[in-house]
């Protein structure tokens, strides 16, 4: 009989759960975090349990991760996001050795080994440029839904607009100016994509790049970023099937480890 484990990732913007039974992911859930981490964790877990028709008591081990990991009352342990992201991505893409995880408020470059363990790490969490916030700000100013940002940024009209890559606020100013000058929305989005990739690259260079490369986090759904990164890195940019769930998947795998460890002790 396979044990049930769960990983829960409380990020600054969204909370995610993955429930596994043996090697299989049987359920997942994503909701917005909101102001109350404890309430959010209960809600997202409930949703994931509903999706597979189980109850909290059925889960043998739960590990939490993310910004709000200490605020999960029903977790048996917590692990850093970096370790969980590396573990989750490498589990689904066993050849992965370099991961770029762009969250809502930070950006992390992770090097891992063949067991998914972290061997190198660099992070920006002080500056909104190079994080999801940058793209959100640009998309909001242009009134473009986030899902359309990627495809539009690849459909150039005249050429990418020059957008500041160092500051999300200045980028916003550049966007407004470009709009006033009558530049096409797609070209502005292209400029923002180029700027973000520039920032990402400088972070990745800090840890060094080893194939295979994987992009994680919400930004992985943005084809404009993926294509441009591939152009700059000159290698394939892999993205896991649901990049936002990698942290919670990694946490679930750590929960499995913990169970095995506990069983050995018993």
């Amino acid at each position, binding site marked *: 009989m396979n044990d049930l484990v769960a990983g829960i990732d409380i990020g600054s913007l969204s909370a995610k759960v993955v429930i596994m039974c043996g090697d299989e992911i049987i359920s997942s859930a994503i909701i917005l975090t909101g102001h109350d981490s404890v309430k959010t964790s209960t809600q997202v877990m409930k949703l994931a349990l509903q999706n597979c028709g189980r109850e909290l008591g059925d889960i043998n081990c739960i590990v939490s991760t993310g910004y709000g990991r200490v605020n999960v009352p029903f977790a048996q342990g917590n692990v850093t996001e970096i370790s969980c992201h590396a573990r989750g991505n490498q589990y689904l893409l066993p050849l992965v050795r370099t991961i770029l995880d762009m969250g809502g*408020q930070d950006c992390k470059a992770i090097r891992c080994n063949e067991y998914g363990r972290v061997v190198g790490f660099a992070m920006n969490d*002080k*500056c*909104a440029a190079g994080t999801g916030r940058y793209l959100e700000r640009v998309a909001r100013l242009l009134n473009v839904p986030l899902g359309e940002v990627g495809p539009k940024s690849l459909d150039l009209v005249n050429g990418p607009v020059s957008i500041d890559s*160092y*500051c999300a*606020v200045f980028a916003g100013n550049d966007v407004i100016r470009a709009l*006033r000058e009558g530049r096409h929305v797609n070209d502005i989005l292209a400029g923002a994509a180029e700027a973000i990739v520039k920032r990402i690259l400088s972070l990745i260079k800090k840890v060094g790049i080893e194939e295979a490369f994987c992009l994680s986090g919400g930004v992985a759904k943005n084809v404009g970023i993926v294509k441009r990164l591939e152009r700059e890195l000159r290698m394939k940019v892999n993205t896991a099937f649901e990049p936002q769930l990698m942290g919670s998947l990694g946490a679930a795998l750590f929960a499995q480890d913990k169970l095995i460890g506990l069983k050995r002790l018993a």
Partner: protein
Amino acid sequence: MGLICNSRIFSKKMIVAGIDAGANRVKAVILGENRMLGAITLDAGKQSATQAITEAVSQATAIVSINISTIDRFAITGKWRSNAPFATREVSDSLSLARGINWFLPSVRTVLDIGSQKTLAVSCVNGVPFKSQYSDRCAAGNGQYLEMVAEILGVNIDELGKFSLEAESYIELQNVCTVFAESEIITLVHENKGPREIARGAHRGLAQRLYPLLLSVGIKPDIAIVGGISKNVCLVRELEELIGEQLMIPSSPDIVSALGAGLVAYENASE
């Protein structure tokens, strides 16, 4: 205006327009007859840089009732100085600032110009700039930071300084980045923390980020602060506390660089 000015400069009978084409505002000054004739600060608003520059000069000439054709020389400084639609001498920001502050306050040897997208510190003597240091990479070191604070707290930007000084204590912000600080302030407001204390903390943070800029050019009294933000009484107070010296503020802080650029055009008028 009761100014001490170098009479050599004004021995030429010329009308000069000095322009400072900044990121958000264009300033234009008309100089002639041994004095500054008039000045204007124009919000660029929805116009392109070129349009704003033309408009500013047009309005400045209207104010002093002269025809634009009587202007003998144009000089321009600031971010968009390459965007003038007429022949003009381009002047560097630090030279314009040094010359300009010397006109208003000749004893100044260190000057800080806080714009909305750039901050410039210059050490100078008698209008000659020596060291200069820019900060234009990050909005958290410029005027836009306070514009964000004002917007989130629902306070008019012109009142923000006075509003913040009403606080006797301050709440230190954990985030430097303008974007993250914005969220932090929203959360603090949501938690019913005092808006004046939050604003005061934000001003302190900005002052702490501006101080190293001044240190890098060397702080020698008299020290002046120019740019729109110099009217913010809280920022001035926080900076004075950090530096340990009183700051001087010229009577028209917005137009200092525009005037400085105009003076440079005068000096070089034999060309």
